[in-house]
Structures are given as C-alpha cells and as structure tokens.
C-alpha cells in the first residue's frame, strides 16, 4: 500500500510541476528583474516533473516485478495492486509512445539545424573572423543590421557590416557579449529543448508557455551579462539603435529595463534618469 501511495504521489507531483507550475511561473514582475532565477525555476519544475513521473513508473514496475516474492508485500489490497499494475504497464506503454514521438519530432528539427550549421560553415569560410574571449566572431557584408549566435559545433557569433556601421565600438562589443552569453550558457540547447517539448505536446498550454518564456528570458539574461561587462548605458544604447533599425519596440523596452535596473542599484545621490537616445 505504501508503494502505491508513493507512486500516486509521484504522479501527482509530476502533474503539478509539468502542468500546474507554468501557470504560477508565467506571472509576476519578478521574472523580468531576475530572469536567471525565473529560467532556473521553469526548468527545475519541468525536469522535476519528468523525474517525478519516472520515479513513479520505476517504483510501480519494481513493485509489480517483485510482488510475488513477498506474500505480505505491497500487493495487498485491490486498490494498491490496481494502481501498481495500471501505472506500471500503462507507464511502459506511455514511455514507448513518448520515445517514438520525441524521435519523430526531433528529426526534422535536427535536420534544420544540420543544414544551418553547414550554411554557417560556408559563410565563416568566406569571411574574416576574430577571436573574442573564446568565441569566433565573423563579420559578413550584409545590408541589414543583424547579429546572431550559432551554437556548437559552429560556436560562433555572426555580425553584419550594417550593424558594425550603425554602432560604436563599445556598443558593438556589448552586442557581441550578449551573443557570447547565449553560447557560454547554452541558451540554444535550452531553447531547442523547449521547442522539442512543444512539438511533442502541442496541446499543452504549459509547453507553449515554456517555449515562449525561454525565448524571452534568455534574451534578458544575455542583456544583463552584456550590461555587467560593458555597462548598462552602452548595452541600452545598442538596443535602442537596433530598435530603430529593426523597427522592433521590444528592444527599446529591454533598454529601459537595463536603465531602470542600473538606477535601482546606483547610490541614491547619483541616481538620475539616464538619457538613452539614438546617437548620430
């Protein structure tokens, strides 16, 4: 009976974490002030839910497998035996189905990424790169202001000449540091995990929240890292200029967030509204 209760508790915990936690974590201003904590909370809930489900399944299967050796063991009572058998066998079928689903959904995503890495390798081979704090930065002639990070195996930051012309040297360094943070903290892998999760469970609101929130939080985390290294003003100015070039208002909001955070941490006598404006 104790094992059955444990199994049910694991399944309950799994449901709470995977299905319920997103509805809590998706709200509140704290997410924008502490994006690293928010991202860690999301993935603790997500991975914890999976671990709880796995633990429940293992317990159930073990109880079913070993029950005939213990006449007074956990199979006493119809309720306990029903729970263990249903969860044990049902769980096996579910795991098998999940493995098949993940494999089916993963392959097209992996194929897209392989093609992208091949394209990136071609681009990198044709253009000069410089090494910036452990990461290759490739500048390519392109008339759109653009910067992106490409994870392993490419492990590279790509910047266009249009962006190079639009920013000052320190602002460009802030952009590179932002992209470098994505690589160093494996944000691409985290984003892919969220994408795969949504592809496997498209009907689950929690899966959609996780993917959406991951995309937002990794950008805020990278903004903060760039601000810590190059200064909030330079990073905010880079964001504001990109907002103008890309006609993307969210970048202006990200800049304002950095300035507000900088003001909060500054001594009160030095606090003043930082004028963030497009230069030139």
């Amino acid at each position, binding site marked *: 009976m104790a094992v059955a209760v444990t199994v049910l508790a694991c399944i309950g915990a799994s449901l709470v974490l995977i299905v319920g936690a997103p509805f809590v974590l998706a709200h509140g201003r704290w997410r924008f002030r502490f994006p690293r904590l928010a991202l860690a909370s999301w993935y603790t809930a997500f991975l914890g839910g999976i671990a709880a489900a796995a633990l429940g399944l293992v317990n159930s299967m073990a109880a079913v497998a070993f029950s005939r050796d213990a006449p007074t063991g956990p199979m006493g009572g119809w309720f306990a035996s029903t729970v263990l058998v249903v969860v044990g066998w049902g769980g096996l079928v579910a795991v098998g189905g999940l493995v098949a689903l993940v494999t089916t959904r993963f392959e097209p995503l992996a194929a897209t990424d392989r093609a992208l890495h091949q394209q990136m390798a071609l681009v990198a081979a044709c253009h000069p790169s410089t090494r910036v704090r452990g990461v290759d930065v490739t500048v*390519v002639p392109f008339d759109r202001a653009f910067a992106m990070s490409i994870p392993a195996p490419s492990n590279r930051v790509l910047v266009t000449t249009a962006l190079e012309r639009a920013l000052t040297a320190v602002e460009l360094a802030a952009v590179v540091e932002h992209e470098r943070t994505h690589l160093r903290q494996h944000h*691409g892998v985290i984003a892919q995990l969220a994408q795969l999760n949504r592809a496997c469970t498209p009907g689950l609101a929690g899966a959609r929240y996780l993917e959406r929130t991951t995309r937002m939080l990794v950008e805020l985390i990278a903004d903060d890292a760039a601000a810590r290294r190059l200064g909030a003003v330079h990073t905010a100015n880079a964001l504001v200029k*990109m907002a103008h070039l890309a006609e993307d208002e969210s970048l202006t909001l990200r800049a304002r967030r950095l300035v507000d955070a900088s003001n909060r941490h500054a001594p009160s006598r030095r606090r003043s509204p930082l004028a963030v404006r497009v230069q030139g």
Partner: protein
Amino acid sequence: MTDKSDTPAKRSRGELENEVMRALWRAGAPASAKEIQATFEHDATPAITTVLTILDRLHKKGSVFKAPAAGGGFVFSAAQSESESAASTMVSALVASSDRSAALLRFAGQLDPRDVEALRAALEAD
C-alpha cells in the same frame, strides 16, 4: 527541332536575372545591353527588350549600376562582385533560416507580443 524548354521564353525570371548577372561578372567592365545580349548562347538569346527589362529590374533592386555611355544609351555593371553576391545570398539564407531554428538566437530576438506587453506593464509599474 528546338526543344521549347530551352527557349528564353520558358526560363524563369530568376534564371534570366542570374544569367544577366553572370554576363556582367564575366565582362569585368561596364557593358551595354547589346553586349550582354551577345554573351548568351545563340539558341538561347533573349530579345534585347527582355535584356533591357531585366537590367532595369536589377538596377531597381540595387544589383546593377547604370551609367550613361559615351556614344549615347547606357552601360551597366554589377554592384557587387560575384563572390560578394554569393556571400550575400548565403547570409540571406542563414538569416531566413534563423526563424526556423530555436538554436539560433538573434540580438533582435523575436519576443512574443504578450511577453512584450507584460514587460511594458512591469516597467510602468516599477
């Protein structure tokens, strides 16, 4: 008997533009529409009006420079070298692909409008 699929009329607009660009790169110097037309193979030569239309389209796209010729008319030259153009095409493909892959993260990240509104509300509440 000529295979109709090889006649200029059957080639797509994109193919003809590419052939005109290749002709300009091979020329290595500003060339008139007639000179460009002459570089096409005899059985695949487009009409001079077609060549002029394509050059006009490429000029509007910024792929081709147009300058008055000494004896009247115009001469045309490629705005980018062949390698620059190839690189630009590769980068365009990469940029377009970044929309499909979660692994590629862009500085101007595509935030969901609901998250943008939530961020705005959070900033205004602070």
